[in-house]
Structures are given as C-alpha cells and as structure tokens.
C-alpha cells in the first residue's frame, strides 16, 4: 500500500498542468457520450461520463469545473443548459469527494456512492426543473412526468419519481463505464492524478 504522507489537499495543488488538460477531455467525453447514446438509440442521456471520470481521477474541484464547462459549452448552442449548471457542478463535487475518501475500492462502498450521487443530482435538479421549467424539460422522460402530473400527482413527486429513477440508472451506468476505463489505464498515467493511486492499489489486489 502506498502511504499517504500529506493528507491535506490544497485546491491549488489540484490544478496541475496535467489535471487542467484533463478538463477538455472530460467535457468532450460528456459531449460524445450523449451523442453516442442518441446515435445508438439508448434510452439514457449518458452525458455525465466525463464529469464523473474527471472527478474520480482528479478530485472534486476538477470534477466541478468539468461540469461547469460542459454546461457552458452546450449552453452556447442551447442556452437552456445554463440553468442546469448547478446539477453538473454538484455531480462533479459529490463524485470527487467520494473518490478522495477512497470509496471506490470495495463493492458495497460503490453502491453507497452511486446512490448518493443519484440522490444529489435529483435534489439539485428538482428545484430547477420545477420552479424554472414547471416540471418538464422536453426530454423523453418529461412526457412520462407530464402524464403522471395529468393523472393528478403533485408536481414535485411526479418529477422526482420519474426523472429521479432515470437519473439514478444513468449514474450507475456512467459510473460502471468510468470504472472499466480506469481499470485499463496504465499505472504510470494513473499515478500522475491526485486520486489515481487508489486505483493502482486495486489492481495489485486483484492479481
């Protein structure tokens, strides 16, 4: 096991040159993930893979910046995305915090982390969607939300019930994809990221 001598993490140390260059990669992966999901006609968004990946490798602050930049860049084409900046930022922060705490080494810790990530994203998305968009955003899941609302359900329960379910499923799939990528990254690359060492230890145990 690699002993961690300086447990204190400063934000400035987080933003090293290599970590900075991971941000564009993360944003591009978010973008391409969403594109691929619609190309393969999958019933999911899968547009947070890059944010989760960056956060898992380089910690919460980098994850948050990746989330922020993703929504700014997609907002250039469709400004509605600006409203969802907090959701992406929180997704990055929460995932990064779990990565820092070395939560991704045992399977039951994964489950806790995934559920927490899903819950955090619903809790940030719900007020935005309900108060600013009246519960629907024009996506596929919105049609279900609208139907549930028409059946007489409260706007908050309707949104959290339908979109929440989609969100948690989305997070689980994104997370599993990130994990499978991290497993194949060579150790010499992993060690350069602030949270990378946790995954190297994983590899040794498996052998």
């Amino acid at each position, binding site marked *: 096991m690699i002993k961690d001598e300086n447990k204190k993490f400063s934000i400035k140390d987080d933003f090293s*040159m*290599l970590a*900075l*260059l*991971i*941000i*564009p*990669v993360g*944003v*591009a*992966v978010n*973008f*391409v*993930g969403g*594109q*691929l*999901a619609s*190309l*393969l*006609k*999958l*019933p999911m968004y*899968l547009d947070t*893979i890059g944010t989760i*990946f960056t956060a898992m490798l380089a910690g919460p602050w980098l994850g948050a910046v990746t989330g922020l*930049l993703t929504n700014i*860049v997609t*907002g*250039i*084409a*469709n*400004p*509605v995305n*600006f409203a969802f900046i907090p959701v992406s930022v929180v997704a990055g922060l929460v995932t990064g915090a779990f990565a820092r705490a070395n939560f991704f080494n045992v399977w039951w810790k994964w489950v806790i982390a995934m559920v927490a990530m899903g819950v955090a994203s619903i809790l940030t998305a719900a007020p935005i969607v309900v108060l*600013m*968009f*009246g*519960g*629907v*955003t*024009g996506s596929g899941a*919105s049609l279900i939300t*609208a139907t549930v*609302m*028409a059946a*007489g359900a409260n*706007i908050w329960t309707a949104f959290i019930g339908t979109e929440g379910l989609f969100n948690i499923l989305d997070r689980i799939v994104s997370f599993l*994809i990130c994990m*499978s*990528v991290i497993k*194949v*990254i060579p150790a010499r*690359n992993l060690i*350069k990221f602030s949270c990378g060492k946790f995954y190297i230890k994983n590899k040794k145990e498996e052998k």
Partner: protein
Amino acid sequence: MEKTFTEKIQICKKNKIAGLYPTTKFQVVILFSISTIVLNSIKLTDFKLALLLIPWFLLVPFMFAITGEFKKCMKAMKAISFIAIFIMVVQTFIVSGGKTLWVWHFIAIREKGLQTGLSLCFLILNIAGIFVWLFQSTSTKEITRCLEDTKMSFKVAYIFASTLEMIKVFSSKSKIILDAQRARGVETEGNLFIRAKAFIPTLVPLILGGIIGSEERVLTLEARGFSMKGNKTHLFNLKKSGYERIILTISIIITILILAGRIYLWIMN
C-alpha cells in the same frame, strides 16, 4: 495587395452591432434579463397574466435582425421554442387550481395553469433568446480573446478554447472508432442490449487516447513556455466597433425606465 498572416486572422465585421465588444454584449444580455424578470412581475388583466412579456419578446427577433444574423439565430431558437411551447401546453392544460376558464371534454384551462404557463414560456424564450443573440453573433475566438482581456487567467482562456477544439476532435474520433469496431464485428444495431454493448468498446479507447494524449500536450505546451510568467503577445486582437457607449446607454435607460415603472405601480397600489 497580399495580406499578411496576422491580417488574415483578424475578424472584421461590417455590421457595427455584431462587431460590438463581447463584454458590452454581455452587459446588454444581463440588463435585458433583469428587465425580463421585472416585467414578469407585472400582472395584467383579471387573470393576472404577465402579458407584457409578449411585446417585450418582439425585441429579440429585432436584435437578431439588426445584427444581420437573423437566419442563424432563428435556427438556434427552434429547440428553445419547442421546450417553451411544451412547457406552456403542459402547464395550461394540466396544472389545476383557480377558476376553470374553458372546458372541452376532458381538456380544461385553469387560471393558475395559464398564469404559470404563460410567464414560464416567455421568461425562457426571452432570456434564452438574448443568449442566442450573444453567442450567434460572437465567434468563440472572440470570446476566448475577451476572457484573456478581462484579466482572467490565460489558463482559463486556453481551457475554453481547447475544450471547443477537443469536442470536434472527439466527435470525429468516436465515429472512426465506431466504424473500426463495426469492422471487427461489434454489432451496433439490433435490440437494446446489443446496442448498449456497443457503447463501451467505443468509449473506452476514446477516453484512453485522450488521457495518454494529454500527457504529450503538457510537454508541448511547457516546451513553448505556457506557464511562463510575464507579458504575452497576441496574434489576434479585438477591436471595438465604436458603438459600445451608445448601445450600453440605451440599454441602461430602458432598464431604468422599466424599473421605475415597476416601482410606480407598487406605490400606486
């Protein structure tokens, strides 16, 4: 006469509004958004509808037109209009509460639904519309350069520019990888499970390539003195169109008038 390289890469806009300095445009966007929110709080007629937002919205296409980018902007507005209209329909016909205004079989329009539907729809159209104007009339090159000028760290500007490039590169790369995997026999069509299985063999090489490539980019950047402290020279420079003051003054006056009107209405009631 033959243009030099530095002359070729400068952006020269004939339209004075489109050529406004990006910061000025951003200030106009902020003032417009504030005015929209203030106008939304003024409720007219017996049903308390935010009707003033509808004439206010006419200003958005007007802005598109005077910038000379009408077609481009309208194209970008399509997705937004879809969301706005969807929200309006859902709110008007589904949200219950208040008096029932109109009934036809099972469809009914209720007072409260109409109120929130109308104001949400036009809030989104107005604010998203003005952002469309900002981004359609400003190229990303200008935004990046402006980020540097506003005393932001040059790293921020670089990351922004690099992100936009990276998206293009990754989009084309993902198509190449998908084709290559297809050639190897990975199925990309069929039922949901088969399609989902094609997702991972496409994304994993893409991310791996990105991670390993970024190490090389660090070396390249450092070799060119990226983190060097000191003044930097630029090949591309932003020019002011000369109309910044006038446009900003007009926007501030309109915003103040709207605010004054709002306060006047408060005092009267």
